[in-house]
């Protein structure tokens, strides 16, 4: 860069590939090499990649725009069902089915966003819960389409057809590479979006909605667009999840699971950091397996941990890391002088 340089705090934000992203991508790319060595297995890597994609998509509303959506499971679930139904009803083509899933989830998100985009705060949260419940309820009861509580079964992991070559991803290790690629794609795209002029407006809305609208931005349209995009990408993650589980269930659409994704985002520090949700998802799944192996009541301990975190460290792991880094820097500067 020549001429004007961005202020130091913003330099990372403007980079095409910031160090945090490269570190995350290299780390996750190396997972298949050592995951069995530390006593875990590939499927947990698949879960983490899918839920990290979902959490990043979700954080576009919560962390970036400040919209407390508490019913995001609906769009994840719609994506999962749409993928399965497209596969059974239209064609067994990965790209087509993914497209249908994203479109269906984005459509559902847009319908809800049209109702609630003029709201904020508690009222917004209320409405997202109510609408989330509608989708969950339909999924549970519409037995002929979704299979109800039994789930939509026999969803295949479709081969990745790149034109010149097609890859079979039915094994967990091969499938990991697919979800890793999906994660990398969504993470890079969202990073660009968040640091684009569009993303700046979203952050302005998060800080002060009234002021953003006084400056002249159509706040309703920005909130609508952010929510719809977030829903569509959540549906994308849902489609991957349907393939991972080879079935789709209404559970993920319930208030319980919608809350858990908020929990993961907050634990990681999604309110203060773009990468926080990824950390939160990894912590959730690894601690589920580690605490879950020791005790069957792991939800109790995770819940208590989470309550303590909200009270004492509400900025999550990323927030704690930043504080530590700032203090370490200050100490270094003091020592150097």
């Amino acid at each position, binding site marked *: 860069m020549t001429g004007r340089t961005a202020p130091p705090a913003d330099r990372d934000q403007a980079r095409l590939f910031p160090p945090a992203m490269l570190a995350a991508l290299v780390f996750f790319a190396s997972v298949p090499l050592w995951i069995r060595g530390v006593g875990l297995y590939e499927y947990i890597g698949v879960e983490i990649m899918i839920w990290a994609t979902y959490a990043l998509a979700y954080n576009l509303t919560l962390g970036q725009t400040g919209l*407390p959506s*508490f019913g995001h499971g609906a769009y994840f679930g719609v994506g999962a069902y749409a993928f399965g139904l497209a596969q059974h009803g239209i064609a067994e083509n990965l790209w087509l089915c993914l497209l249908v899933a994203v479109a269906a989830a984005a459509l559902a998100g847009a319908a809800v966003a049209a109702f609630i985009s003029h709201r904020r705060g508690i009222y917004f949260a209320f*409405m997202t819960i109510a609408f989330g*419940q509608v989708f969950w309820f339909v999924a549970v009861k519409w037995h002929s389409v979704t299979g109800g509580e039994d789930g939509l079964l026999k969803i295949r992991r479709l081969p990745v057809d790149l034109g010149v070559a097609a890859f079979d991803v039915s094994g967990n290790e091969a499938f990991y590479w697919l979800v890793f690629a999906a994660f990398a794609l969504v993470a890079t795209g969202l990073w660009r979006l968040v640091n684009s002029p569009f993303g700046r407006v979203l952050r302005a809305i998060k800080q002060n909605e009234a002021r953003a609208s006084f400056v002249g931005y159509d706040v309703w349209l920005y909130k609508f667009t952010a929510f719809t995009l977030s829903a569509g990408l959540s549906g994308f993650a849902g489609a991957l999840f349907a393939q991972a589980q080879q079935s789709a269930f209404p559970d993920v659409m319930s*208030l319980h699971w919608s809350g858990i994704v908020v929990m993961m985002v907050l634990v990681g520090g999604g309110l203060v950091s773009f990468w926080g949700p990824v950390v939160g998802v990894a912590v959730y799944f690894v601690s589920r397996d580690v605490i879950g192996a020791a005790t069957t009541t792991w939800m109790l301990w995770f819940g208590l941990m989470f309550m303590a975190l909200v*009270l004492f460290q509400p900025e999550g792991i990323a927030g704690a890391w930043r504080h530590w880094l700032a203090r370490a820097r200050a100490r270094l500067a003091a020592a150097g002088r």
Partner: protein
Amino acid sequence: MDLLAALLPHLVNGVSLGLLFALIALGFMLIVGVMEQINLAHGSLFALGAYAAFVVMAGQLPLPADLLAQWKQVPAGWRYVAALVAAPIVAGGAGMLLELCLRRTYGKDVLYGLLFTFGAALVIEELIRILFGTRDYVLPLPRGIGGGFVFLDLIYSTYRVYAGLFALGAIALLWLFLERTPYGAIIKAGAHDSEMVRALGINLTRLRLWVFAFGTALAGIAGVILAPIWGIRPHMGVDAVVPAFLVIVLGGIGSFWGAVAAGLMVGMVVGLSGAYASEWSLLSMYLLLIAVVTFRARGLLGKRSVLEV
């Protein structure tokens, strides 16, 4: 006329259910109004009330065996009264504990309170699973309020009528408390402008503690009343909190009669659609919500709320 008569029992059930929804929602709304917190653990405290009532009724108390045997000799009616007293105390006590922790989040984004109580809901549900297992329990009832009765050739469930009347009485008492006592005046003032209430020399911290206890105690009572209708199981809290949410959004946040009207509407819609398509009866309340908020963004009787800013 025949059609109307055939629908009458469903209508009675619907009204009774609607009044109970309104009761749960009102407890929830007191908390939303005074401290601007969404208590996602409200349903879990409702479940806690139901379990407390079961423990008292069935005599599964941690007491010496001979005392317990004596307790089981007490007539079921009195044990039921004891359960009605114990449940709100347990739920309200748990609510107080929650509020003591929740204090730290006041003044921050409302999201933190929401998340804290979500964590609490997970923990309470898991605790219930650990203590009682996942099986369903049936709350034993005194003979007077069980069974059914015949009126104009149609059979009604006695308990449903009793539950509706109980909820009606509780709502009336709550209204009297809020409108006719100095405590009620303070609570309403607190919901309107808590800073001004503090400036007038009222201990806001204590007020919030008691309002939280009171709101959750109402959930506990509702838990006892709904337990025989729904059965006692760990998941019952979610079944209660979701209609309560809908009732509040439908009625308009902060409106007492809005919540009662919305509760009745939801109850009747669920009851009547239950007569035709029981599988889908719960969906009707969601459709009702969407229909109402499409035309009235703040619900039936909602005014511009402090929570919207």
